[in-house]
């Protein structure tokens, strides 16, 4: 089943460039900035933002990948353990300004988990948040510093971000949720 398109490839490209400008503007430069993408689609987004900053500012920012699986608050509730995709952080996040990058901001629980994970690696000067899509319905006191697009949604809807690096095309879709059958465990 396919959903309704809410962002085209061009819109994603422009939003990414604007995010890169906002991040640099807020920091008043690029000193001390580290971009960390949240697995999975936050990682290519962080790389794109870094490429855009390199193009406009001539500065190559360190980019990392963070997997928050082990920090999820629902591990005891999901039917199966999520696949762990790996964490690779640039060395030394102490005193740096970390910009967390993710594709969709929803309940805020991913970001809570990401912050818990980050502080196990060190003590950043500040942690900021940049997302491509903010779909509302926060369950925690978390907000994004930089948003590509605000999208009003209902809880029965799914926002799917597709990126070339992962999915072979760039687009954002919205669709109604469908339940899939749950496999039975065996001994």
């Amino acid at each position: 089943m396919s959903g309704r398109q809410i962002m085209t490839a061009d819109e994603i490209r422009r939003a990414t460039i604007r995010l890169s400008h906002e991040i640099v503007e807020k920091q008043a430069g690029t000193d001390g900035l580290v971009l960390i993408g949240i697995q999975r689609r936050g990682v290519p987004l962080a790389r794109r933002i870094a490429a855009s900053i390199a193009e406009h500012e001539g500065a190559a920012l360190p980019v990392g990948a963070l997997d928050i699986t082990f920090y999820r608050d629902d591990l005891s509730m999901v039917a199966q353990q999520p696949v762990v995709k790996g964490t690779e952080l640039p060395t030394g996040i102490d005193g740096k300004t970390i910009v967390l990058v993710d594709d969709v901001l929803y309940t805020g629980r991913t970001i809570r988990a990401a912050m818990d994970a980050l502080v196990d690696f060190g003590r950043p000067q500040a942690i900021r948040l940049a997302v491509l899509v903010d779909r509302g319905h926060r369950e925690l006191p978390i907000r994004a510093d930089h948003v590509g697009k605000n999208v009003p949604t209902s809880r029965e809807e799914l926002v799917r971000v597709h990126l070339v690096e992962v999915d072979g095309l760039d687009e954002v879709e919205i669709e109604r949720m469908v339940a899939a059958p749950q496999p039975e465990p065996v001994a």
Partner: protein
Amino acid sequence: MSTAIGPDAAAVPSVDDVPESQPIAWRHRHLLDVDRLSTDELDLIMRTTDAMREVLARPIAKVPALRGRAVTILFYEASTRTRVSFEVAAKNLSADVVNIAASTSSVVKGESLIDTVRTVEALGAQMLVMRHSSSGAPYLAADIFSGSVLNGGDGWHAHPTQALLDLYTMRERMPGGSLAGRKVVILGDLLHSRVARSNIWTLTAAGADLWLCGPATLVRGFEAWANRGAAGRRFHLTTSVDEALRDADVVMALRIQRERMAGGLLPSMREYAARYGLTRERLALARPDALVMHPGPMNEGVEIAPDVAAGPQSVITDQVTNGVAVRMAVLYLLAGTRVPS
């Protein structure tokens, strides 16, 4: 597709993006042996172990994945590395760990295995790691325990986490990360070896050219199995150590289990060392970069010479380190399996 939705996901508001579905569904509630694991499931364990290795390399090697889970470790047999490694693995995942050594428990007052398992469950255990001298004991425990049972070694039968950490260690060291077509030799006391019996399943599943080698009295019963194969996957059996070691990629020496060595199976330890011990001279028959492995504990100078065990080809300490990561992976995967209600 970026996300998959299970029936619970709608009911449980959770992390923003619902976890992506496993490419391979993990369907096992227990880990009793490796014989029922598909190659896809073995790959999933290996990939999850990679992630655990990354956790172990962190400045704080601890993640909250199993926070609030009660893991009980119940060992009826002596052990250092397996018991400690399970304990460290569970603690690295933030589980609550209770250790029971049978020798200091009510077992010495005559409590049966079934009663002990019921008692630890009543005390809150959700995952039970057990070692027992009787083959099949964890299967009995799994019948009555409502959580997950992990076999930490049962009699001569199985030692699944050892086979998994051996597989991980070999794959890590092989160019291309594959054992397909590689000559792997398991040398020594096969008769009493649960390590060998579990390794036969995983190594043949990984496509290794598997050779078992030992004196005739200690390879009894394996001939029929070698001909029939493990799930049809054949392997070799020989009493000639030269034939086994020639051009081998991996040589795993097994401990001579003196405590199980009754009835004149071996004339003497010295004779065994002379005829089957893994010495530098014998190792020279294998490929120059062949890996040397041993599940421990070692009888140095009997099944393996000290200079070989500590030599440049030895990955014996890697086996121990990888043991923690593999056990973290298995605990993590089992903790996600729903118990049917």
